[in-house]
């Protein structure tokens, strides 16, 4: 009996060596593949489902502080190194991959208000409620600071200039310091309100911005007379971060309030263009409480924000809504967030004494990838973006579970928003034409700009 079998010559489909490209015996004529789009759609759907399955962003917890974490500092040259300060004046050095505390010492009486590394990474500057600025050497195990400066004024926040030996502090006034000097080389003051956050521009290094308690954000130029421009917001700005890739953009994290007169306001972030501060470039919503801290990713494409509503959110810099929300049952009010310098991790410090490490992209696979693996992941990413608008894919990709208190707060806020909208509509309907103008969302948040 003759048995017919399909036989193929292995030469046609096997590679000669491992390095060769796979031979593909395939006809790419689109007429022969009438179901291209449906097949890709099915793949995209599977991919987006898998992405949600693999989305496990929480990596670990650094515990050891005996009071709430007040500040974090990234080492400029070592990715695995993190310094943190707490409300009890203790500073801890962490080894991130090992998740262990390497060194711990009592630095200040009262809060540690600010922590920053010098640009070469050899020293750590710390600042506390005891009105001292201390310099700690990273090299040897010293109990005592290498240098201590007693300040005449209260100190609340500090920021180091990039690649120079100057740093700035704020409190009652804004002061510019230099290493090796015990007095500020410059003191800037505009108005009598105290400042609670200050941040240097990383690209145009002579620029800095500070948040004042009169709800204003002030821009300074250290080369010249100092304060340059001030913009007063509806609500107090809690924190501020410059975009490390776009010299003129910075994002402000804001306080919130409710039920005041007929308006209400939720915790928002505003991205400003330093050249035109009358209207923010973008308003980033989604938090239901005050936003406490904000930090940009080193690529400047995204930023992370920590809020008083016990969540961390990640925003794309040019979009109004968050792409990700992180929360855990035990994480309390956020006090500080920080994005690692390799764009992979997010560190968050919170009231309940823990520092948490998250993945910046929840479903990302960590570690080295083989080329084929990388290609497959890229392919799936491309598929997801290609079909992003399709309802099923959008639904799966954007679905997040949030804790009950956030869900309820959101519901409440939605109702409030609708109420305000309805009321405004009614007002418009029953008043003279043009008497109640439409005001775009972006223009609602800035009160005035001072020259």
């Amino acid at each position: 009996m003759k048995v017919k079998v399909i036989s193929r010559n292995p030469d046609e489909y096997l590679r000669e060596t491992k390095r060769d490209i796979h031979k593909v015996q395939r006809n790419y004529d689109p007429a022969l593949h009438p179901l291209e789009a449906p097949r890709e759609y099915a793949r995209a759907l599977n991919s987006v489902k898998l992405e949600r399955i693999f989305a496990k962003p929480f990596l670990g917890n650094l515990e050891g502080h005996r009071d709430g974490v007040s500040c974090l500092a990234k080492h400029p040259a070592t990715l695995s190194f993190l310094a943190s300060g707490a409300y009890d004046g203790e500073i801890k050095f962490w080894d991130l991959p090992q998740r262990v505390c390497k060194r711990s010492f009592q630095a200040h009486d009262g809060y540690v208000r600010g922590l920053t590394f010098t640009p070469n990474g050899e020293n750590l500057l710390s600042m506390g409620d005891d009105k001292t600025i201390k310099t700690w050497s990273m090299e040897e195990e010293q109990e005592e600071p290498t240098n201590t400066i007693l300040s005449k004024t209260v100190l609340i926040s500090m920021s180091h200039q990039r690649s120079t030996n100057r740093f700035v502090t704020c409190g009652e006034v804004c002061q510019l310091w230099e290493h090796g000097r015990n007095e500020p080389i410059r003191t800037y003051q505009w108005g009598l309100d105290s400042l609670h956050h200050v941040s240097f521009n990383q690209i145009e290094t002579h620029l800095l911005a500070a948040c004042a308690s009169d709800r204003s954000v002030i821009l300074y130029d250290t080369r010249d007379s100092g304060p340059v421009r001030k913009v007063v917001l509806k609500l107090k700005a809690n924190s501020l971060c410059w975009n490390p890739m776009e010299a003129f953009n910075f994002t402000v994290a804001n306080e919130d309030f409710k039920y005041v007169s007929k308006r209400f306001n939720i915790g928002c972030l505003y991205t400003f263009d330093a050249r035109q501060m009358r209207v923010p470039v973008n308003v980033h919503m989604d938090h239901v409480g005050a936003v406490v801290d904000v930090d940009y990713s080193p690529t400047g494409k995204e930023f992370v924000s920590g809020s008083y509503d016990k969540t961390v959110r990640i925003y794309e810099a040019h979009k109004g809504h968050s792409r990700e929300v992180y929360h855990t049952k035990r994480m309390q009010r956020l006090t500080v967030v920080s994005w690692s310098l390799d764009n992979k991790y997010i560190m968050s410090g919170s009231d309940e004494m823990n520092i948490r490490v998250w993945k910046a992209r929840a479903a990302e696979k960590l570690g080295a990838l083989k080329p084929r693996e990388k290609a497959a992941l890229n392919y799936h990413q491309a598929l997801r973006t290609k079909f992003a608008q399709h309802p099923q894919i959008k639904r799966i990709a954007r679905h997040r579970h949030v804790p009950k208190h956030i869900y309820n707060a959101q519901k409440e806020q939605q109702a409030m928003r609708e109420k305000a909208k309805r009321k405004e509509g009614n007002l418009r309907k029953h008043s003279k034409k043009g008497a109640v103008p439409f005001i775009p969302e972006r223009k609602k948040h800035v009160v005035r700009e001072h020259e």
Partner: protein
Amino acid sequence: MTVDAEDFDINNYSDSDEGGEEEHKRLLNAISKLDKRKKVLPSERREPSLQVSEFHLSKETNSDANAVHLRDLAKSLSLKASNGEIARKLKATQKKAKTLPKPLEKPAANKIRREVAFENVKEQLSQWDPVVLRNRISDDLVFPLKSSKGTMLNPEEFLSPHQGATELERQIAAVLNDSPSVQKEREEKEEYPLSLEEMIQRRKELARIKAQESYRQAKAHRQNKIKSKKYHRHARREKIRKQIKEFEELQQKDPEAALQRLEEIERERALERASLRHRSTGQWAKNQAVRAKYDKESRQVLAEQLKISKDLTQKVQADSESSDDEQIVEPEVAVSDNPWIAQTKTEADVDSFLSGYRKYWAEKSKESQGNTTIESSNSSAPGNTVANTSPGADIQCIDPKAQNLLDTAVVSYSEMQNTEDSSEKINESKTVSGSTPEKKNLNKNRERLTLTKRKPVINDVTASCGKWEVSPLETAKVNVRSLVDMFDDLQEKISEKAKKKISNFKEQVAPQSNQSKKSKSEKRKSKTADASNLLEMKRQKVQIDLDEKLDEGMSANHDFASELAEKIQLAKSDSSEEKSQASSAPELDPNKFMKTGPIKLRTALPDEVTGGDEALDDSDVEEGEKEKQLTISEAFADDDVVADFSREKQEAIDKSKPEDINLHLPGWGDWGGHNIKPNKRKRKRFIVEMPKPPPRRDENKGNLIINENEDSAARAHQVSELPFPFTSVKDYEASVRAPISNTFIPESAHRKLIKPSVRTKMGAIISPMDKDVLVKRQQKKL
């Protein structure tokens, strides 16, 4: 005021009495003692500080007396005539000089200062606009960004001639280094040091050479690793073919060099054969050797083999003068099967070959002299070829057929290029000449082609020469007749190809001219481009940019009631529309009328029914259709198709109607059991009547059943909104339709399409943008 008064007094006093200085001082002291108030002395600044206290400023009226005034200095100027000019100017300025206005209030002054400073900041920040924009729209960003601070190679290290990998190379390098010529050259170079540009050029050259060598090495490494015998066989054949081709070309261009090359090839061949084959190292020979101990035959065979190999590698003294005297070792014709020794060439053969070649060479030179004459005489060409081919047949070739084919291929290739050139020329002159002259030109071209094609048939001279004897693999006579046929075929093919090429070229040229115009205008535009134009840059790759709120449970609040209400609303609106349409259109009875003409859909999908008959005329198609219809009507002659259809439709309509819900449950006050009908009143009470369904879409379309529920499952997957960066549905649909998988498109395209727009290097610190980005690097022209 009091102090002023005092001053006045003192001045008066000093004016009146100039002599008594001492007295005057005493008097002053006395007066000051009278004044009980304490005098505030102007404080002195001891160290430089930025802050100047307002208390430190004083009018210093007391010291006014001792002050030196400008006018006093100017007095001395007027003593000299040459300084008169300066003095006059000074006076004039003093006249013009006014007291400065009162300084602004501090807040106002600060405001102005801030404004100016802000303008400066603004200007400075605006420098970053293009960089930021470029990064925003870029499809391929790799972080950390490339910084200008690259690792600098030590130039001497880089320029040093690179160390040879092998011992031999190193030795050669050493010898070369020592050689006087090189040293001399070096001295010269030292005398005239290279300029920067030359250095850079040299460095580049070296880098290029290094890179090329590394590529070659990698390639060789890769190829060596391939185990496939088939591949190597192919590769070897390819190599030989290439060599032959090259040789052919060389033969045409430079016969002398070709002769040399031939000799080389022969030598190589002989060497190869001597080294590898016909020895006792092959598998067969080894087997024989194993057997040889017991088997006489195999011993014999092996001996023979060795002998053959010896014979083959024997050097033949080809010198005609010496050959007469010396004895030539004639190989025995023992094994007739072995093609290698089937026919060895005698000396006479070699001579004849050489003479033939010389003859050819002479002809060739003649031809080159009288090239034009040959070209003009077309009729003489075929005869020539025949005449020329016959000596070619006499000469023993390695493989005449293959050789011929190769020849023709070579010629055709070179001719194709020629035709291309000529076609370009044609196109240039196209504006003047019409289509007919063009054809003529083409014809001429073709004629020339035939000419040049037939000439090289003479060149079938890949036989032995010189000192090494080579015998052909097969002895085959050239069939002249078949050759001629082959040429005819080839000629046709080439002419066709030439036609195609020309037409292609025309097509290429036409859009190019358009493009050049366009590009010119674009250039003009780009010249006028400014910052605002810059902002109009677009992403090359358009991707969906969703900016929507995360679904955190808020949007999933739809309840059934609202959905139903929506649906009913929709149905109402639909029905009203339908009614309005229906009232306007005349009603048709579907039972009596049916449209039967085929409707052609404009679909992109292949039409499989009419797959092969594209070439058919329209009339043919119509006939075919008629036939089909006929057969269909014949097939369904007995059936009442229309009635069946209407029945089917009615069924579909009934099926789609929502059924009333019966909520009646037998129980209270009812008899139980089989076949008991429930009370009519109760039945009415418990039945929930569904609302009348909206009119069907196929209600008035007699020949159609529209299944409205069919795509309800698909609808959940369909896009209802156009995503952000897209401006037209067409574009978006196209983007969805275009596949990105390597299942449907080639791997390279797939890779390009799936490349992520932002990539980061693992474990690398991404530092903020550097100001070096703004610096325009000097372009080194070389």
